[in-house]
């Protein structure tokens, strides 16, 4: 019978229905309304029946009434005048003795988006908000949010917001929960007016209601709590204590929302607190339990765990096994588990992980298999000890001859080669056997790279490369890039003895091709240069912080901030993790925690013992001293970049001869090496940051750069982010130390066709914890072809991670168009602090105390300044002369430098009057920085 309801063809039925709706028989009427609703469901237009349906509203049959209401909600907007006919019934129903009917009326009225009806809604709503029955009140609370969505002004004018606020103190927990939900939603569209007014008292009320309300209400309350910033660590702890019981709730959403609150408030707890450790331990089991939920929820949980693992790896580090993929898991669960497995892989569990990955690589789903193969490569890069085993596993997989497995394996082997140069080249022969089967650009590019890189070890490298060149014009940029660079690269290796003129000519042709169209050339050369680091695919830290604040929500599933997928004003505010605030100092400034971007309190000046200092600051494995030689892998690994950079500069300078380029830049001159070491594989750095690498200035003819006469040295601005890499935004900049503070001076140029707004900046973790001390102040929109200079104050309180090179800084800049990444290097003199002058006696004792293996010698050639002038010049940049001695016609300057993180460097500068060369001896307990300080000396003296 109901099937009949569903298949009504409208045209013939409207008439019939009309008759039935006006029937005297109640049953017939009801059946007719049902048919109308069924037609409405399948998308047929039954609005013509509006008056007839509304006529059925005056009934004491609740079921019929509800059906009519359903119809009204759907069609009232298209028939506003007739909808008025319903108002009387609504108003009457709001007075009904039965609370269920009162609630139904107010609930439905809020869903009818017709102005005239809304006007009539206000009085009944006001009454219902104060109804004696909690069921009516909880419905009225939501109705305020509905009304606000239709007419925000009306809600404010009528004072409903205050009534809603009062409901937070209601005796009924469900009323509280709905009021919280409504207020949270309303306050999203009024970010500034602090509607919820969260304070310790109201928080206490919420926490009490949390224990008593429905599972859904608990979610509303927890999500609201997560927006609160506790005043200090004590309040934070007490809230955490009251939220942790929720981790045992059967509803996964309650659990995830509780996890969100805990993850956020944990930020404020001191790490040495016992409770902090307890809390960390408590978080793991519920997260694991989420994985036994239904697959859709598992997916949500896994996306969130992915974030949590990045933010706090310690929580789940022992739980690797639960992320093993089950054969019958849906593909979306499998892929997410794999991601987390890689993040949790460590030396302790790598054997198990590899065994699993190998298993997965034989499964059916192509995406999954590819990802598994890629994961093996990532393990090799992440856990050095496992690299060999990974390589042999990959070789096994290549033997399977499954096409996409082979291709994927070659791509990751290339990455392994880049990470561990000259270690596994014995496998090249096997790789070369599979040359013919490669049909994907990425795999071909990888293979070309390998062949070019190890050309001298491959007998027929020429032939192999040539075979790739045949299809040159059909290839994607990725492949051609590799072809070009590798053909050129191979040339340079073979130049002295290569006598294959054909190949050489070809190289020149490509080179000319590039030089005639520099833009295209640049694009081609810069196309593919992945940074090989231990962790890949890490979410950028500020985004991660924001996403942690959105645990459980869609943002955490998409791994995107809400404004990336939500329209309009809602959800545009960026959420941030609170900063740690100690209980003593914050009482008078409740908002302190919220202004994370602002100056946070300096940590107490405790100078840790040397061992700790080094370990913490540089995050180094202290055991093998040989591990800290950064230049060697850089030059090897940057074979491609070297060329890229060379090309780039040459194109810019319009040098005519290719051969000159080839021999000059690649020949291993100090200039080229400096470039390679300095750019560290980041494409944006290729423009050459003169802050680094002494010889670069010559190459780029930057002699005219402005140096400050007094104060510290400021390198001239360099282009960090070329416009074509950033959709028209060009950023050039430099670093300066002014008045004891660090500044990043930026010039933003808009080369695009549209206006740019909403600028923001974030740094990746870096060696010295440099972080913006405030937001990027670009107050006016940036018009086409306009340039704005901005000075961004920095502090050194950010998170720390050792970078390669040490002074590398990875930066993300956002505007209304996209997010762009680039990296740049700062002169380490930026970090020389003003109180770096050491007492003579202390200097002497320290100098003796630092072992001589920590001493670095450096020569500054062709330099004619006398010792006093040099001393003055250096002092401008906080290099302080502690003492001066003159022995045998040479001046000895003893100088001290202190870095922002408390590292001291002691120097002896030997200035001979006979030769124009300075000798610099530098002692530092952290020898990693010496190299950079030496470079700065030269830079400072020459400017």
């Amino acid at each position, binding site marked *: 019978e109901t099937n009949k309801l569903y298949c009504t063809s409208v045209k013939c039925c409207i008439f019939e229905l009309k008759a039935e709706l006006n029937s005297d028989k109640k049953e017939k009427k009801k059946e007719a309304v049902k048919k109308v609703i069924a037609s409405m469901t399948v998308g047929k237009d039954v609005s013509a029946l509006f008056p007839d349906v509304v006529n059925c509203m005056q009934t004491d049959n609740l079921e019929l009434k509800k059906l009519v*209401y359903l119809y009204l909600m759907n069609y009232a907007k298209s028939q506003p005048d007739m909808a008025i006919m319903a108002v009387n019934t609504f108003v009457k129903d709001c007075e009904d003795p*039965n609370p269920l009917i009162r609630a139904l009326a107010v609930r439905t009225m809020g869903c009818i988006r017709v102005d005239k009806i809304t006007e009539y809604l206000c009085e009944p709503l006001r009454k219902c908000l104060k109804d004696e029955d*909690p069921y009516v009140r909880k419905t009225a609370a939501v109705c305020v949010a509905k009304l606000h969505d239709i007419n925000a002004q009306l809600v404010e004018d009528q004072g409903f917001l205050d009534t809603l606020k009062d409901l937070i103190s209601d005796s009924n927990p469900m009323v509280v929960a709905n009021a919280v939900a409504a207020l949270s939603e309303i306050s999203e569209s009024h970010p500034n007016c602090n509607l919820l007014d969260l304070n310790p008292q109201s928080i206490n009320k919420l926490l009490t209601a949390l224990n008593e309300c*429905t599972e859904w209400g608990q979610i509303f309350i927890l999500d609201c709590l997560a927006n609160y910033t506790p005043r200090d660590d004590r309040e934070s702890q007490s809230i955490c204590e009251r939220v942790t019981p929720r981790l045992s709730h059967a509803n996964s959403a309650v659990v995830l929302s509780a996890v969100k609150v805990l993850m956020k408030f944990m930020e404020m707890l001191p790490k040495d607190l016992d409770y902090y450790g307890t809390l960390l331990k408590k978080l793991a089991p519920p997260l694991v339990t989420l994985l036994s939920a*239904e697959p859709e929820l598992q*997916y949500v949980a896994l996306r969130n765990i992915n974030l949590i693992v990045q933010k706090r790896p310690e929580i789940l580090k022992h739980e690797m*096994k639960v992320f093993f993929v089950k054969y*019958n898991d849906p593909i979306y669960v499998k892929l997410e588990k794999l991601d987390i497995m890689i993040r949790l892989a460590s030396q302790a569990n790598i054997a198990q992980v590899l065994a699993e990955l190998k298993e997965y690589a034989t499964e059916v789903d192509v995406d999954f298999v590819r990802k598994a193969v890629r994961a093996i490569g990532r393990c090799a890069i992440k856990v050095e000890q496992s690299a060999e085993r990974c390589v042999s596993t990959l070789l096994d997989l290549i033997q399977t001859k499954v096409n996409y497995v082979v291709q994927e394996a070659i791509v990751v082997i290339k990455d392994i080669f880049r990470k561990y140069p000259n270690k596994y080249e014995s496998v090249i022969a096997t790789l070369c056997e599979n040359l013919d089967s490669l049909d994907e650009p990425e795999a071909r590019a990888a293979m070309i790279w390998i062949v070019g890189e190890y050309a001298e070890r491959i007998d027929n490298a020429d032939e192999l490369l040539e075979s790739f060149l045949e299809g040159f014009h059909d290839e994607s940029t990725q492949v051609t890039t590799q072809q070009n660079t590798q053909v050129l690269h191979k040339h340079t290796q073979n130049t002295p003895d290569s006598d294959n003129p054909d190949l050489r000519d070809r190289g020149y042709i490509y080179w000319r091709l590039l030089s005639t169209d520099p833009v295209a050339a640049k694009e081609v050369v810069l196309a593919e240069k992945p940074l090989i680091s231990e962790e890949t695919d890490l979410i950028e830290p500020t985004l991660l912080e924001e996403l942690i604040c959105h645990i459980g929500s869609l943002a955490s599933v998409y791994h995107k901030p809400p404004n990336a997928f939500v329209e309009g004003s809602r959800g545009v505010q960026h959420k941030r993790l609170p900063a740690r605030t100690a209980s003593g100092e914050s009482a008078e400034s409740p908002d302190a925690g919220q202004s994370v971007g602002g100056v946070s309190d300096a940590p107490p000046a405790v100078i840790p013992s040397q061992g700790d200092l080094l370990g913490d600051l540089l995050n180094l494995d202290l055991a093998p001293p040989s591990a800290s030689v950064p230049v060697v892998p850089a030059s090897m690994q940057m074979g491609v970049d070297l060329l890229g950079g060379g090309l780039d500069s040459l194109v810019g300078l319009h040098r005519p001869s290719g051969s000159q380029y080839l021999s000059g830049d690649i020949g291993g001159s100090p200039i080229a090496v400096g470039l390679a070491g300095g750019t560290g594989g980041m494409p944006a750095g290729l423009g050459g940051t003169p802050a680094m690498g002494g010889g670069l200035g010559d190459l780029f003819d930057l002699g005219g750069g402005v140096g400050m006469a007094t104060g510290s040295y400021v390198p001239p601005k360099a282009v960090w982010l070329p416009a074509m890499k950033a959709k028209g935004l060009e950023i050039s900049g430099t670093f300066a130390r002014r008045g004891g503070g660090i500044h990043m001076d930026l010039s933003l140029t808009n080369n695009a066709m549209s206006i740019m707004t909403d600028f923001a900046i974030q740094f990746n973790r870096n060696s010295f914890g440099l972080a913006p001390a405030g937001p990027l102040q670009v107050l006016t929109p940036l018009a086409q072809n306009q340039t704005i200079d901005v000075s961004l104050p920095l502090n050194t309180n950010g998170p720390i991670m050792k970078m390669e090179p040490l002074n590398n800084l990875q930066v993300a800049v956002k505007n209304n168009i996209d997010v762009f990444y680039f990296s740049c290097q700062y002169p380490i003199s930026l970090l020389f602090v003003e109180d770096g002058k050491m007492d003579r006696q202390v200097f002497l004792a320290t100098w003796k105390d630092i072992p001589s293996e920590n001493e670095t010698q450096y020569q500054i050639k062709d330099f004619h300044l006398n010792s006093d002038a040099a001393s003055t010049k250096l002092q401008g940049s906080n290099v302080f002369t502690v003492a001066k001695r003159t022995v045998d016609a040479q001046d000895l300057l003893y100088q001290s430098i202190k870095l922002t993180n408390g590292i001291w460097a002691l120097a002896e500068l030997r200035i001979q009057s006979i030769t124009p060369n300075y000798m610099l001896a530098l002692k530092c307990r952290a020898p990693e920085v010496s190299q950079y300080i030496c470079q700065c000396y030269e830079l400072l003296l020459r400017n």
Partner: protein
Amino acid sequence: MIGGLFIYNHKGEVLISRVYRDDIGRNAVDAFRVNVIHARQQVRSPVTNIARTSFFHVKRSNIWLAAVTKQNVNAAMVFEFLYKMCDVMTAYFGKISEENIKNNFVLIYELLDEILDFGYPQNSETGALKTFITQQGIKSQPQTKEEQSQITSQVTGQIGWRREGIKYRRNELFLDVLESVNLLMSPQGQVLSAHVSGRVVMKSYLSGMPECKFGMNDKIVIDKQGKAGASDEAGKSSGKQSIAIDDCTFHQCVRLSKFDSERSISFIPPDGEYELMRYRTTKDIILPFRVIPLVREVGRTKLEVKVVIKSNFKPSLLAQKIEVRIPTPLNTSGVQVICMKGKAKYKASENAIVWKIKRMAGMKESQISAEIELLPTNDKKKWARPPISMNFEVPFAPSGLKVRYLKVFESKLNYSDHDVIKWVRYIGRSGIYETRC
């Protein structure tokens, strides 16, 4: 919040469509059909973003339920709600099928109006809903004032899952400890991962508003009691039998803060059947069966498979419904099977040999051998060798969990804990019980 909720049949025809928010238009209904239901590829995610609109979906048999939103909603909540919605519908009219949905569409609309307000989930406990949303829809009329306020206070109250004034002549409760034991074993017999996920399901037929307390051999509780001065021996002997629970979650009736502080499980139960708790253990699991596979490739066109299963529990107990599923390659042309016990069949449509044994006692073993003929293929891709999976049911809890007590207190009515008839049953089932070969 949830902007709309749609239910489709397998063809993508809409059976139910309820829109809660103005930002969701009728075109959303079609967008989901076109991009997800009619999509050529297998669904790659339960959350889909189409033109800045997010769709969450779950499938029950061949029915699609989709929640739609344009906001940054709580995703976990949306899925929990969709599952809850399925539970509620099942409680009202049984299986979720196209037929049942069409027959009950008025009821479904009524439910959707009640349990989702402006996209915010409201009380969705069937116990409470059934007091005022009935299939007849008439019950609402002759209610007395008292009845009405009882309904509303239950729907909004602290104990939303139970109504007052329930009376039974015989106070009775049934406790089922249902465990599913999961295993992933390497071909060499190494346990790669094993865990038990268990549920305590309770059927209570108790009068009034009884206060219950549930106790089990939870290691933390037992150790604490041991320390608190119970006689040493008792402490030791019970300590042996206690189990380490990795994590547990509770029905919303359980006072979580009390569990957090004292680890005691106290609650006022819903009437009828519900799931009191879920738990997970990974230590000292009794693996009821061990599967020993042996696969040998004889040339390119033949496979020899031998599988031994060993039961590993008390000889006095009987396992039931044993089924071993041995995958076969896609290019299988014929299979010959010999098994010692039970029945085995090659099922071409499922690409597997299915071996069924009705009953098997503990500490026994049985064996199957099969010869699989293969068609020669050019396919370079190797056969993925899916794991051998197993199903069974055993009359004990593989985690070792024991119910120690379930006490019932009802101060107002004159029945005591002794008067309540209690039944406890343990059932261990295979979850995903796989051995790689």
